[in-house]
C-alpha cells in the first residue's frame, strides 16, 4: 500500500510538469509580445520593459521555464499585476466561500444522486427509472447559469424565501450562511447530480446482471439487502471514478455559479483576473486546481482498496 502510494505520487509528477509546461507555454507562445498582452494596448515602453524584466522575458525560453519552476517549487507564485499583492495571499482570502460552496454542493450530490441512481436501476425500464433518466438528461443539458437564474427567479424573486445573491461566512451564524448557500449549492450540484445518478444507475445495472446477485436472490435475501449490501459496494468503483473526474466539472461550475450569485470566491477571482489579464493569478489558479484534481484522484484511487478487497497495491 505504501509503495503504491509513493509510486502514484511519483507518477503524478510528470502530469504536474505537463500542466506547468502548458501553463508556461500558453503565455510565452501566444501570438504577440507577452508583455504587451499583460500590459494592454495603452502601455508605455518603460512599463513594457519593467514587465519584461519582472517576468524574466529577456532570458532564453528554457532558462525562463526552469527559473519559473524553481520559484513555484519554493512556493512563490508571483504577485498580482493589478493589486501588487502576492497571489497566494489573494487565493487564501477567497478560499472560504468556494470551499463552503463546494462542500455543500458535494453533500447535496451524494445524498441525492446515489439513492436516485440505485432506485432507477432497480426500477429499470419502468416509470420511475424513465423519470430519473429524463431529469438527468435535462440536468446536464441546461447550462448552470440558466438553472441559477431560474432558482433565483423562483425562490428569491417570486417567493421571496431566500436572498438573491451574496455570501455570509459560517462564522456569522448558521442562518445567514445557510440561506445564502442553498441556491448556489443546488445550482452547482445540478449537473453533478445528473452525472452521478446516471453513473450510479449504469454501474448498478451492470452489477445487477452479475451471477452473485442471482446467488443472493437464490438465497432468499430481500431486495433491500441485495441492492445495498451486495450490489452497491460492487458498483462503487466506477461511481468513485466519476466523482473524481467530475471535479473538473465542479470547478467549471464554481466559476459560473459564483458569477451568478455574486460570491467572492476563487471563481470570481479567476474571471476578474482573466478580464484584467492578470497573468500570475491565472497561472497560479490553473496550477492550483490541476494540483487539487491530481490529489483528489489519487485519494479516490486509494479508496478503491477500501471498497474492493481484490484491489491490492
Amino acid at each position, binding site marked *: 500500500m505504501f509503495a503504491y502510494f509513493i509510486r502514484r505520487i511519483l507518477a503524478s509528477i*510528470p*502530469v*504536474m510538469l*505537463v*500542466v506547468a*509546461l*502548458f*501553463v508556461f507555454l*500558453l*503565455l510565452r507562445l*501566444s*501570438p504577440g509580445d507577452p508583455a504587451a*498582452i499583460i500590459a494592454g494596448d495603452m502601455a508605455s515602453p518603460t512599463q513594457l520593459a519593467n514587465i519584461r524584466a519582472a517576468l524574466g522575458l529577456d532570458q532564453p525560453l528554457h532558462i525562463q521555464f526552469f527559473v519559473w519552476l524553481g520559484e513555484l517549487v519554493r512556493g512563490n507564485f508571483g504577485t498580482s499585476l493589478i493589486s501588487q499583492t502576492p497571489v497566494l495571499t489573494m487565493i487564501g482570502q477567497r478560499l472560504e466561500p468556494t470551499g463552503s460552496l463546494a462542500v455543500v454542493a458535494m453533500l447535496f450530490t451524494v445524498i441525492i444522486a446515489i439513492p436516485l441512481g440505485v432506485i432507477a436501476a432497480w426500477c*429499470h*425500464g419502468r416509470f420511475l427509472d424513465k423519470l430519473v*433518466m429524463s431529469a438527468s*438528461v*435535462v440536468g*446536464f*443539458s*441546461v*447550462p*448552470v*447559469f*440558466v438553472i441559477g*437564474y431560474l432558482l*433565483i*427567479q423562483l425562490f428569491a*424573486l417570486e417567493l421571496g424565501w431566500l436572498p*438573491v445573491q451574496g455570501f455570509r461566512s459560517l462564522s456569522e451564524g448558521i442562518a445567514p450562511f445557510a440561506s445564502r448557500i442553498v441556491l448556489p449549492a443546488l445550482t452547482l450540484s445540478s449537473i453533478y447530480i445528473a452525472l452521478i445518478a*446516471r453513473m450510479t*444507475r*449504469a*454501474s448498478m*445495472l*451492470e452489477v445487477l446482471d452479475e451471477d452473485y446477485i442471482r446467488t443472493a436472490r437464490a438465497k432468499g435475501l430481500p431486495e433491500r439487502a441485495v441492492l445495498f449490501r451486495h450490489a452497491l459496494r*460492487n458498483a462503487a*468503483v*466506477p461511481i468513485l471514478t466519476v466523482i473524481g473526474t467530475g*471535479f*473538473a*466539472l465542479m*470547478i*467549471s461550475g464554481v*466559476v*459560473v455559479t459564483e*458569477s451568478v450569485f455574486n460570491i467572492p470566491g476563487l471563481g470570481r477571482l*479567476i*474571471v476578474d483576473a*482573466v*478580464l484584467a*489579464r492578470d497573468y500570475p493569478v*491565472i497561472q497560479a*489558479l*490553473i496550477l492550483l*486546481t*490541476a494540483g487539487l*484534481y*491530481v490529489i483528489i484522484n489519487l485519494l479516490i484511487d486509494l479508496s*478503491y482498496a477500501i471498497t474492493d478487497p481484490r484491489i491490492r497495491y
Partner: protein
Amino acid sequence: MHASHSHLTLAPEGRGVSRLLSRLSQTRPRGVTLAAGVVLTLIISVALFAPWLANHDPLALSPADRLKPMGSEFWLGTDPYGRDLYSRIVYGARVSLTVGLGVAVTSVAIGLPLGLLAGYFRTLDAVLMRIMDGLMAIPGILLAIAIVSLTSASLWTVMIAIMVPEIPQVVRLVRSRVLATREEAFVEAAILMGTSTPRLLWRHLMPSTLAPLIVQGTYICASAILTEAILSFLGAGIGTETPSWGNIMSEGRVYFQLKPSLIFWAGLLLSACILSINLLGDSARDALDPKMKRRMS
C-alpha cells in the same frame, strides 16, 4: 479492477439465458428521438435562414429603444442598448451551431489518429497519455478562458480553446477501444496472416472505435455549445459585436431583476438545443450499441 468496457465488437453469443436476454432489451420511445430531431432541425433552419427570419439589424444600436417590452415592432423586446432581442437570438444560433459542429468534428479528427497510435504503440502511449493526463487535469473552462484571454477573442480562438480540453477525452476513448479490440482473436488472426501494421490499424482496429466515437461526437457537440455560452456569459467569449446566446445573456445579467426575458429566451433556446443533441446522442448510442442500451436508456 472492474472490467466495465462496453463490448461493441463482440456481440457475445453467450450461453443460453444471457443470449436470450441480450436480444430482449427494450427500445427507447421513438417519440423522444423524433421530437429532439424536430427541435434541432428547427434550430438549424433558424441559423441557416437567419437573414430572412430576422426583422432588425441585430447590431443596430438605438438608445431611444432601450429595454422595450415585447410588442409588434420588437417581438421579444430590446436589450439595454436598444437592439432587437429577437433578431439577436436568431443570429446567435449561428455561433452556437458552428462552434458545436466545428469542435466536434475537429476534436474527433485529431483525437482518432492519436488514440489509434497510442493504443497500438506502447512507447508512444506512455508519452502521449502523460500529456493527455496533464491536459485533463486542468478544468476545461479554466483552460478555455485562459486561452481566450491571451489571444484575440475570435470565433477561431474560442473553438480552439474549447477543443483543447475535449481532445484528451477522444484520445482516451479511442485508445481504450483499441486496447480492448487488439486482444480479440480476429486481430491476432490478421497478424498471423501477415497483415501490415497500418492496414491492421485501419481495417481491424479503427472500425470498432467508430460507433462510440459518433456517440462521443454528439456529446462533444452539446458540451461545446454549452462551453461557448459559458465563456460568453463570463465575458471571455466571442467579442460582443457578434451576437451569441451567451453574449445576449451576459449583457442581460445586470438587468435580470428588471427584465428576466433578457436571459430567459436565449437560455431556453440554448437548453433546448443542447438537450436535443444529447437526446440524439443517447439514441445513437442505443442504436449502435445494443448492450449499452440496457444500461443507459
